[in-house]
């Protein structure tokens, strides 16, 4: 996804610790997210979810399946 794009999460395709961490931050299906930007080296990525900004590595973000608006 690109900067300033919006999307709705359709699924989180990972279980285990990463899945848990993503979910507790609010990344559950049906929630709207927006890509805020990326770090100077393009990784990690900062996304806006439920009124807060969180950062994840690209390979972690890959597990978030999104339907782009």
């Amino acid at each position, binding site marked *: 996804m690109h900067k300033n794009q*919006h999307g709705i999460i359709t*699924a*989180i395709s990972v*279980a285990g*610790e*990463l*899945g*848990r*961490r*993503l*979910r*507790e*931050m*609010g990344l*559950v*299906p*049906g*929630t709207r997210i*927006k890509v*805020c*930007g990326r*770090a*100077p*080296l*393009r*990784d*990690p990525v*900062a996304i806006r*979810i*439920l*009124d*807060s*900004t*969180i*950062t*994840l*590595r690209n390979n*972690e973000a890959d597990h978030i399946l999104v339907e782009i608006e």
Partner: protein
Amino acid sequence: MQLKMALAGNPNAGKTTLFNQLTGARQHVGNYPGITVDHKEGHLQYQGQTITITDLPGTYSMTAYSAEELVARDYLVYNRPQVVINIVDASNLERNLYLTCQLLELGAPLVVALNMIDVAEARGIEINAAVLAQHLQVPVVPIIARSGFGKDALLSAALQVASTNQQWNPLSISYGDDLDTTLSELIKIITAADLMTETYHARYTAIKYLENDDQIQAKGREISPQTAHLLEQLVEKTADHSRLTLDVYPEAIIADHRYGYIKSLLRQGVITRKFDADRLYTSDKIDKVLTNRLLGPVLMLAILFALYQFTFSWSEIPGTWLKNAFTWLSGLVETTLPNGTLKSLIISGIINGVGGVIGFVPLIMFMFFGIAILEDSGYLARVAFMMDRIFRIFGLHGSSVMPFIVSGGIAGGCAVPGVMATRTLRSPKERMATLLTVPFMNCGAKLPVLALLIGTFFGENKARYMFFFTMLAWIVAMLAAKLLRSTVLRGAPTPFVMELPPYRFPTIRGLCIHTWERTYQYVKKAGTVILGISILLWAMMTFPGLSEEVSTSFAMKRQEVMAAAAPDTRAELQIKKEPLSEQAQALNKAITLIGNEEAEMALRHSIAGKIGISLESVSRLAGFDWRTDIALIGGFAAKEVIVSTLGTAYSMGKVDSKDAQSLSDRLKEDSNWNKVTAVAALVFIMFYSPCFITLVCIAKEASWKWAAFSMAFNTILAYLMAVAVFQIGTFFSLG
């Protein structure tokens, strides 16, 4: 009457601010036994009651997957506080309520403190506390922790809840038909077997089983293996089913439903938004600049450099003041006490050793203050965000940046709070790697040695070289981390899901408390280890002392010199007339030189000297002679004593760390020392074994095995590097 209260909430929700507001200085940070999570407790008097407040670790949820969450959960069920204040960030309500949900499911007697309503208002978010309270069925009190607004209302509500002394009643959320059915079955089994029902509600235990909670499942197996087996079987069946039909585990379904519950709750008139949800808030605008592709790193370096400057220049004055105080004290002892062992002990052993450390306290304090500002404002999270990609190459996390900076990554610091700061790293492997490599940073104790050697041999470009050695420390630390992560600490990287909190203005109180906590750790070191070591070293360098005949021969030499001088000159020295004439000065110098020679010989014959000489065969390869060896041995205990020991070893009498001018000259003249040896020595000192207190810290945070490993690994690495530098440098005649 005594009341137990607990504070729970997300990180960055203002929990610590509220805790500081309520308890002020009446707090104590300790340790949960066996676990490296801080135990923060404080006291408060309100309406005639004594309230003990425990600040639980900040968590986003209450699973069993991190030490903090377990600590929070266990505290709640085993200590049963009469009321739990759940701090919730009003500008971020939805996610914050996830934890609230879990607290309610646990059944804890709750009061929700709706914090940061000013921030929410600025963002056009209006929260109807009354409606929220109605839905959650617990009191909801709007507060602004920073200013203390709502504090009274909060405490009253809390006391009210505590006084009703209710049973712990869990909230029931529906998790969808499939899971709900399974839950009822699980609950039936649990109730029948009475499994852990004194601690947890049957429903809670059932949910935990469905979530695959390790801690609860392990406990279940311990108490009643048959029941546990039954439960686990049932859970597995459900898990398989949900995987097949919905392609998710029950855990995920449960999380989804919790958020679903929260969303539906909020939709019912709790939140009203004035502005478009996409609007850029001030924090976002600032971040556009601070984490910008180009400007971000540049500004970061600028800020770090500014911190470096600020620390050094502002701490100059108090530092000098302290140094002068110690010199005065030393002078006082010099003139009042009779010559002898006790006087030597007090001056060389105690005042010198401890004075050096205390002289650095202003510098360390200013550094910690600067770090506290970066931390509390939220900027440090951005640094972690920008640095993560680089740190990842070495097997570390962006969040490791903080412990490195605290340990002396910029200029001066202390590995003790640095090691403790690794507690915030959730991932064990990255944490160990960080823990073992932070001692490579240039802490406040290593700075005087750096200053001495660089100033002596590279005087023309002092600043540049200081910077170079700081960079070197980082490079070695990163490479060592990589090495560790590919060998002894091998393992997959752990998730880097981190929140970027909005920028906030730090509170002065918060800054002072943070700064003080860390500075205190450094100061405590002075009063304990360094004092002891200075005395021990002094003893090792004084005894067994020169034999009778040798001392007599020196005394005779002095007499000869005195006799050879004119009577008036001698008289001048005796009455200590000032200023002295030229001849008197010359005489004085001659006497002093003999005294120095005697001191050096005494040192050679002392225990320390003998040890140093015995190590010479090995240390020669790196260019160190016995005198340097003694200083380095002292450094094993505390690096602060290296300069003073070196001074004594080079028979300067007493050398004070901050003004090592004459030692500098002495080294420049010594044939053993040149640029190559200096660099070799610097390299060795920067990287060898952490000082004693740091080792103890490492042992506490990890284990004695790791502390021993740290000592050995670092020293061997440092030795190899020093030898390489010396041999190559000498080969190419770079000296």
